[in-house]
């Protein structure tokens, strides 16, 4: 890989995990102990790389440029003759060197780990494991809060359920209908609908239908014995009822 090829250079930059990574590589190229490294030389190399990369692509990731700016500052201070600012720079350089040493240690550790025979990569555990576990579910798991909340739940549900309790049905029987029809017939001058004889408290549904059929049966019974006359003008039309004209004038 030739360093002069700018495309190559940029590509290379892309492969680094951030500026520190590149700095460490540059530092190692000096082939000396990180303690004795020339920070100034390192800074210059970094800036040269970034400069080269910027010529190719302007859109260089921010952290590369931030590092470049910081290193430029560091370089200028390091070049100053002895002064308070130069001392600051010495300190900053020391920090940079120790960060590089930390990163180097981590890289070494990663390499060391990578060199271990990894389970599932280099060494393998038993593929067909055998399981001798037997599960015993005979015991109960219970807790008092569970008992209490169950009790409350039962009470609440029962309380809320009361409205649904089916009410006892007492249907209007044929006997009832006979009685009612006989009673009311006296007050009836002319034809009237049989439905008028239904009890007042059956409004709808099954009770009403039951009362209807009881009344009809009662009506038929009474018509047969000649007490009343029934008439229906059309299919499914209302059934009309009237007191019989006379006891002898049958249906």
């Amino acid at each position, binding site marked *: 890989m030739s360093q002069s090829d700018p495309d190559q250079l940029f590509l290379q930059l892309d492969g680094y995990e951030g500026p520190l990574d590149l700095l460490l590589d540059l530092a190692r190229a000096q082939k000396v102990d990180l303690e004795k490294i020339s920070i100034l030389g390192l800074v210059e190399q970094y800036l040269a790389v970034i400069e080269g990369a910027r010529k190719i692509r302007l859109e260089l990731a921010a952290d590369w440029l931030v590092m470049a700016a910081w290193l430029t500052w560091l370089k200028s201070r390091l070049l100053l003759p002895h002064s308070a600012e130069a001392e600051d720079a010495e300190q900053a350089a020391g920090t940079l060197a120790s960060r590089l040493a930390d990163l180097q240690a981590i890289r070494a550790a990663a390499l060391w780990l990578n060199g271990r025979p990894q389970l599932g990569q280099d060494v*393998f*555990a*038993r*593929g*067909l494991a*055998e399981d*001798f*576990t*037997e*599960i*015993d*579910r*005979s*015991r*109960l*798991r*219970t*807790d*008092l809060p*569970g*008992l*209490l909340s*169950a*009790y*409350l*739940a*039962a*009470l*609440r*549900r*029962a*309380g*809320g*359920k*009361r*409205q649904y*309790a089916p*009410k*006892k049905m007492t249907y209007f029987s044929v006997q009832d209908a006979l009685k009612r029809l006989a009673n009311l017939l006296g007050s009836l001058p002319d034809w009237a609908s049989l439905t008028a004889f239904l009890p007042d408290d059956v409004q709808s549904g099954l009770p009403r239908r039951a009362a209807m059929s009881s009344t009809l049966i009662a009506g038929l019974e009474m018509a047969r014995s000649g007490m009343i006359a029934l008439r229906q003008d059309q299919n499914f039309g209302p059934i009309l009822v009237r007191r019989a004209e006379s006891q002898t004038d049958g249906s």
Partner: protein
Amino acid sequence: MDHEPAPHSLRLIEAAIFASREPVLRRTLAGLLPDDTDLDAAIAALRALYAGRGVELVEVGHGLQFRTAPDLAASLRKLVEVPRRLARAAMETLAIIAYHQPVTRSEIEDIRGASLSQQTFDQLLEASLITSRGRRESPGRPTLWGTTPSFLTQFNLTDLRDLPKREELLVDPLPVAPPAPELVRPDPVPEQTDISVSE
């Protein structure tokens, strides 16, 4: 036992059978070894190596696998207790019996507002959490039910009086019953039934 340092082929088929997730077919093993290897001899040697040990090489279907020796199974068995939970219906029934005992089955159903399945009831009986407590002297002489000493143990109670009082439990009032005429049971839970504390 004296055998040569295991040749590479032997080690390889041993590792392959060990690591594989399924029994390994002979032809798969053959594929791992140099062409001139006598696979049958290698398998036989491997089997001999494991003979009488805690693990044996067995042939299943057309494949080979290691298995722990059957005579060790009993010693290796490990009992894991996974306690069951009581189902909701059982828990409710138990709670009602605890609070209202002695209580008949139909009273329980009334309080829960749901019918009680035999299965639920049997579960409580089998777990020795409830027991019969004689009969009520009323038509049909229904059995009365109450909790057992095991019930106390199970719930870590020293006494039935350790159960919180019903009033203490009822932070929210029960839903108000609809005012309708069709109310069958006007006063569902008798006021006094609370806890039948046995002094």
